[in-house]
């Protein structure tokens, strides 16, 4: 197990370096510069800017310096657009926003999805089954940038129940709509995965054994079936996290939340090179570590998996 973790970590580090390098190359290959706008800058000013940000050096020195600072000091530099703010501060400030929306959405999706999926599986072919699966299909098909505004239209602009946008601190009513919007798709996926997993498990021999030794239906479901039936859901956690990250980009834009995704879009539009690289690297690290955690969790839950 330990060897597995170490080996995975050893693969993770080069992967992150590759991601950073790809991003860096893309930015450098693209025509133009962060300071190039409608008007051409006077040559002297342009020269000063290039000197200040080290753009006058050859590309390998620029690349080397960027990588060295990241690897040696964990320092992604200073934002070009938000002057005087280091990339690390911006990430530290915006992470809580994204994380609270993302984690709440994932928890909500897990709870609702597992319950709906289990009910659908236990009452297969009933009205419950059909309606929850139709809802799940709807959840998968409605894009979140359509769902979000429609929720705003209903709950904020017509009923005046909830604030339409803006960040209001961690536990606040502002979070309800973003979390609902973000979780809809995962709820749907998790419900479908749970249903499929449960249906397969419920037909297996050990469930028949559990039933025939006289366990109550609740014990059979909660203690035996769920454990096996939820394996697909757990292995979905990794991909879900990746999608969750992209989902937050949209949700933060719709609801004007100052999260990582919003900063990332702004940085891409502004060509804020250090900020882009910083956020991409941060997301890559989070994603890879999460995937590792999922694999470890898998090994603990499924005794057949041996690392």
């Amino acid at each position, binding site marked *: 197990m330990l060897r597995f973790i170490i080996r995975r970590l050893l693969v993770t580090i080069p992967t992150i370096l590759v991601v950073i390098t790809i991003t860096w190359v893309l930015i450098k290959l693209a025509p133009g510069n962060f300071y190039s706008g409608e008007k051409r800058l006077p040559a002297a000013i342009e020269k000063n800017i290039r000197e200040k940000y080290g753009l006058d050096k050859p590309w390998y020195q620029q690349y080397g310096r960027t990588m060295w600072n990241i690897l040696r000091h964990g320092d992604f530099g200073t934002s070009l657009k938000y002057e005087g703010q280091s990339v690390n501060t911006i990430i530290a400030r915006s992470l809580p926003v994204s994380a609270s929306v993302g984690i709440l959405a994932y928890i909500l999706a897990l709870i609702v999805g597992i319950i709906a999926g289990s009910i659908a599986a236990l009452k297969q072919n009933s009205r419950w*089954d059909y309606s929850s699966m139709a809802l799940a299909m709807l959840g998968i098909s409605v894009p979140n940038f359509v769902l979000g505004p429609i929720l705003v239209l209903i709950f904020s602009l017509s009923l005046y129940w909830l604030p339409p946008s803006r960040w209001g601190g961690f536990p606040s009513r502002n979070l309800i709509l973003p979390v609902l919007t973000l979780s809809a798709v995962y709820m749907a996926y998790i419900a479908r995965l749970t249903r499929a997993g449960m249906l397969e498990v419920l037909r297996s021999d050990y469930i028949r054994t559990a039933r025939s030794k006289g366990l109550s239906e609740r014990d059979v479901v909660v203690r035996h079936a769920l454990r096996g039936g939820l394996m697909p859901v757990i292995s979905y956690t990794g991909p879900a996290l990746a999608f969750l990250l992209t989902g937050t*980009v949209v949700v933060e834009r719709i609801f004007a939340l100052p999260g990582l995704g919003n900063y990332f879009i702004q940085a891409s539009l502004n060509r804020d090179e250090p900020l882009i690289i910083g956020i991409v690297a941060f997301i890559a690290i989070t994603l890879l570590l999460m995937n590792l955690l999922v694999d470890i969790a898998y090994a603990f839950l499924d005794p057949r998996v041996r690392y």
Partner: protein
Amino acid sequence: MDEKPTRLPRELELAEKELTPHGESAQRLMTPDPDPIHVAPEMAIAEDVRAEDGGYVRGTSLWRDAWRRLLKNKLAVFGLIVVVLITVASVIGPALIKRLLGFTPDYIPTHDIRLVKSFPPFTGPEGNFSWLHPMGTDNAGRDQLARVLQGGQISLFVGVISTLVSLLIGVSYGAIAGYIGGRVDNLMMRLVDVLYSLPYIIVVIVLLSMFRSQTPRGQLTLLFIALGSVSWLTMARIVRGQVLSLKNQEFVLAARATGVSIPRIIFRHLVPNTLGPVIVYATLTIPQIMLTEAFLSFLGFGVQAPLASWGSLAADGIQNIAIYPWQLVFPGVTMALTLFSLNFLGDGLRDALDPQMRTV
């Protein structure tokens, strides 16, 4: 503990997951399949059906069989009909509107400044009922219906072409890895594993924002490359799995014995036999790519004016959601309906072709 036992369960598990990207479907689990298909298409011809008089009639092919089963699935048929209707409407709609009503999707009624504003659905210039704009107009007085239909052209086009790109890359990659096997296979699939764990959409956003193209053709080409090149991974895994299970069968041995070259074996003998799962997965890839395209266009990185896709129309609509909700609702609902139908169609196809029976 060594390499081999560590990878096997995870990979099997993944292979299973990929074949059911949306989880297991209802149909397959509800009724045990009366006539499972477990042979390569060209071998399935002799599946005899009993006629009323007790004799045997002509056998049915796998494809006719699948088609029959697809028609039994009401949701899939619904999906098929809606997809066909929306495709036809998108393709001929804008031209038809121009012929009948005389305006194009980007026509702004500049002759009368009172018309250059957003009208609600079925509303004429005086606030009266009118059939002229069934989906209303946008801020510049352009007809929403025509714009939604034209947006559909772009969205469907991007979805289909990018899927073809991903199909081309994924099928060749997977088939080559699966057929050659051994260390090459291991290396190629490790690369896929690594690519899987990348936050690709983030890299795509960087790519698209850095290489903003001004021409419509440039924007679309960039989108095809970006979307196609990130969505071939699952396809490669599916095809590899299929090829692995097929490559030791007699017909491959026969081909090899008669001196057929390796590329020819791969592309003439193996790839056609993986067609079932590939078609199913491709059908399910189209809505996903359309969703990603819409997501990118929504953020302003996809197609830009004067081109419009459902995503960019929705992005425009969200600006005015409080006053002109129909600007968001129509493109959004049309898109959701299309994705909904495509997903049902893909699920139905999976049930009909039942690739799971064919995996090893």
